[in-house]
């Protein structure tokens, strides 16, 4: 035991998923009684690292060592790490909505005698941990009746009931409003000071990190790139943190293009969207944007910033409630209240979730490719398969979809080729405006380049392109202009001359401005 101050050491952690190296020799050191923040872009490997710590990825599926409380640990399942007092609270809360707070706190850890629940003990013990997290509710209240902020507190109370020593919170405030966020951070501080609980917090909100963390570890592309301290005397330098988070060199991963931009064809005005269930929560706050013909515009935002919600709420109101605002195509206001009307207005939305929202994996390329424009390939409602084949075949060649023929089931294709099929589905509907949500997520570098070429080609045909991405180099590499989004607010409209990852990241992490919020109400 070199340093008894250290509670946790993760050394040389490497984890691969097939050919992809998610983590490459990551080191992490957590001191007893601190609040430690882990920062990094989406996909940097933060969550993977925590899943290794908790045993979700069991010992043997990764390489490297975990030393916790002076002993080497080999967790095979979550239960193993919890027995040692390590509790990870995932972004997606693991509560059963129709059971009570008390039942949830002791889920899997029931207060019981010979298999019979001891309800008095359950309630009494629940109230005790609830008090510690400042949760003033009846322990019999059902989870479904609580707001997300209080649900988060139930998770922490549950962790306390397990005698937690190391509490890991993955994006705990991503879904919370400002007040609930502040309360949660207060609780984490209280647990550190009064209960001696060490916390690890993964967050995209850099101001929050600055407010609460004692130390920060920065992870980028699966490796530890730096460790920073934050104290009264040496406050965290956010510029330096951002530089560490994004600091990689751009190289020629992006095809050359001479933009040919003409008149404006797409405009969104005062677009406001509320959460589909929690109607009070504003997800998109008075967004204004426009895209011109032949222009490729980026929408840069981190996960949870409202970027996908903005796109889906425009496209047939497929997300959100109480949506207000106007959409113009070619200067005329259009009705986008259903997907069909949006398509007719000339808008296409290519989802970020290829498998969940994009493709029918049970069918072939041809049938997927024409799904958004079936009527165009039909006569008296009967499909003209010959015409359909010719059209899809053309895209197979143009987009270089690597498959023996278009009758191949899409589940047999690689991610890059599936993405091309998804693009085909929308290009074939002949839209004027294409909203591409994370168009290169999870595909290899070669296929990415081809997707960029397709995007460039579409722009040169005079289409307006809006690309949503959290990969800044990608946006800088292909866009003519970039909007930054943070917490549902479009914070900046960045011209090409000002493109830099640091500058964009500032816009993407900007806290909701007070002015904006007053104006928003």
């Amino acid at each position: 035991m070199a340093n008894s101050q250290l509670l946790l050491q993760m050394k040389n952690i490497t984890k691969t998923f097939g050919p992809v190296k998610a983590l490459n020799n990551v080191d992490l050191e957590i001191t007893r009684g601190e609040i430690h923040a882990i920062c990094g872009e989406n996909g940097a490997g933060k969550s993977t690292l925590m899943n290794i710590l908790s045993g979700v990825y069991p010992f043997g599926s990764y390489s490297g060592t975990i030393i916790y409380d002076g002993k080497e640990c080999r967790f095979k399942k979550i239960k193993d790490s919890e027995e040692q007092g390590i509790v990870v609270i995932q972004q997606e809360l693991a509560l059963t909505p129709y059971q009570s707070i008390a039942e949830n706190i002791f889920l899997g850890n029931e207060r019981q005698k010979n298999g019979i629940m001891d309800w008095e003990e359950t309630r009494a013990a629940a109230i005790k941990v609830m008090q510690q997290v400042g949760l003033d509710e009846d322990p019999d209240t059902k989870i479904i009746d609580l707001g997300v902020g209080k649900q988060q507190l139930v998770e922490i109370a549950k962790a306390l009931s397990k005698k937690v020593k190391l509490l890991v919170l993955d994006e705990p405030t991503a879904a919370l409003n400002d007040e609930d966020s502040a309360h949660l951070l207060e609780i984490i501080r209280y647990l550190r000071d009064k209960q001696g609980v060490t916390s690890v917090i993964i967050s995209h909100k850099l101001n929050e990190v600055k407010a609460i963390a004692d130390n920060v570890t920065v992870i980028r592309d699966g490796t530890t790139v730096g460790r920073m301290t934050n104290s009264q005397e040496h406050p965290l330098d956010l510029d330096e943190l951002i530089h560490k988070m994004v600091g990689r060199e751009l190289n020629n991963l992006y095809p050359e293009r001479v933009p040919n931009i003409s008149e404006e064809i797409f405009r969104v005005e005062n677009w406001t969207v509320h959460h589909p269930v929690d109607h009070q929560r504003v997800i998109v706050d008075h967004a204004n944007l426009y895209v011109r013909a032949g222009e490729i515009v980026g929408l840069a935002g981190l996960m949870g910033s409202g970027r996908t919600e903005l796109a889906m709420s425009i496209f047939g109101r497929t997300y959100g409630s109480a949506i207000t605002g106007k959409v113009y195509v070619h200067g005329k206001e259009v009705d986008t209240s259903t997907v069909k009307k949006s398509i007719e207005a000339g808008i296409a939305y290519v989802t970020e979730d290829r498998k969940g929202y994009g493709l029918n994996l049970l069918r072939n390329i041809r049938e997927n490719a024409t799904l958004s424009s079936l009527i165009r390939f039909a006569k008296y409602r009967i499909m003209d398969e010959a015409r359909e084949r010719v059209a899809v075949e053309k895209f197979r060649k143009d987009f270089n979809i690597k498959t023996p023929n278009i009758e191949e089931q899409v589940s047999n294709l690689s991610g890059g080729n599936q993405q091309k099929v998804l693009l085909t589905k929308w290009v074939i509907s002949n839209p004027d405006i294409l909203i591409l949500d994370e168009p290169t997520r999870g595909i290899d570098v070669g296929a990415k380049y081809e997707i960029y070429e397709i995007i460039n080609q579409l722009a040169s045909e005079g289409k307006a392109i809006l690309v949503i991405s959290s990969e800044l180099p990608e946006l800088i590499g292909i866009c003519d202009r970039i909007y930054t989004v943070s917490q549902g607010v479009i914070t900046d409209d960045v011209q090409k001359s000002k493109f830099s990852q640091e500058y964009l990241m500032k816009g993407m992490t900007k806290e909701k401005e007070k002015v904006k919020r007053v104006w928003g109400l």
Partner: protein
Amino acid sequence: MGIMSLGSLSHQKNENTKKEAVLAAFAANARQYGIVGALIAIIIIFEILTKGLLLQPNTIVQLIQQNAYVIILAVGMVMVIIATHIDLSVGSLVGFIGGVVALLMQDMHVNWFLSIIAGLLIGILIGVWQGFWVAVVGIPAFITTLGGMLIFRGLATTLIKASIPVNNTSFNAIAASYLPNIFGWWGPFDGLTIVVGILAILAFIWSQFRKRANAIKVGLTPDPLLATYIKIAIAIIVIGALTFEFASSGNATQGGIPIILVIVGVLILAYHYILTRSVFGRRVYAIGGNRRAALLSGINTRKIDFILFVHMGFLSAVAAIAMLSRLSSASAATGTSFELDAIAACFVGGTAVTGGIGTVPGVVIGALVMGVINQGLSIMGVDSALIQTFKGLVLLLAVAVDIIPKLRKR
């Protein structure tokens, strides 16, 4: 997108790749051929076990007449299951609609043809009723149709009491009679059947060559010629054998093609066409395979759900009429557990429990597999209770054969 050069076709097509292409043309439908193979194996086994009784012409006619209702219901059920729903009410609908049609003819002396039309309309109306609850209100189909099952069984029992005999000969002929011998008897054979058989073979050959011609016309590589010839040869054997069987079926006064076979055949062809060629069919597969993706592609998923239940109501009415004609009597219990026969036929025929996968020919073969097992075991004198047990095992086996290879893949 600018038109790019057509990829240059490789010239070195040797014998091996030709063979592969022929195999590939068949492998595309491997699952379908698998069930067909199973059906053939089952037929051969029972032909031996029943000492040649199974393939007697009149046994085959009986097989069709007995299983017509399963095929009619399964054709609708497969569409419903593809779209991730289920319909538990079809058995009760058969009982209820059969009762209404019998009442119209017997008690109210309505013309038999008008009674049939009324029956079909009632089926469609009930489909609208169930479609409303599923598609508009959003109650899961399982619950809606479980309700329908109770509602219409109850109504059938109230309406019919014990039973209503039907003594209209025209109506009863639907299930029991044959098409008229308009070409007379050619030796022991019905002339009309021979003519229809030959026409069917010619139509098949024509459709195969038209498919090739279309593919070539739009610049695509068609299946190899050899594959087409193999398909044609198989079709000639199968259609020829069936023609022989039906042509020599019947008795001294009538024989040939059973009327019910014509009805079932038309429904099979029509619904196969709808499911594979129409925009509606595409949308059914789309919402079954990924409902959210279908929604985001601009498909009105509720409308599709609604139409599906209307189709199911219509087909339930057709099955009700076929059943009433066959039994010549409506009873309160008619159609009990028919929904399960139809669902079983779907799953034996390769329909996926989770939706998105299934074909009309598949479920027809699924229904025939169950029918042949039933018929074969009956001829052998096996107790009907035990036959049920056998059918249950076959269902399990058929789905297991489908699932086990997928488990290994993981």
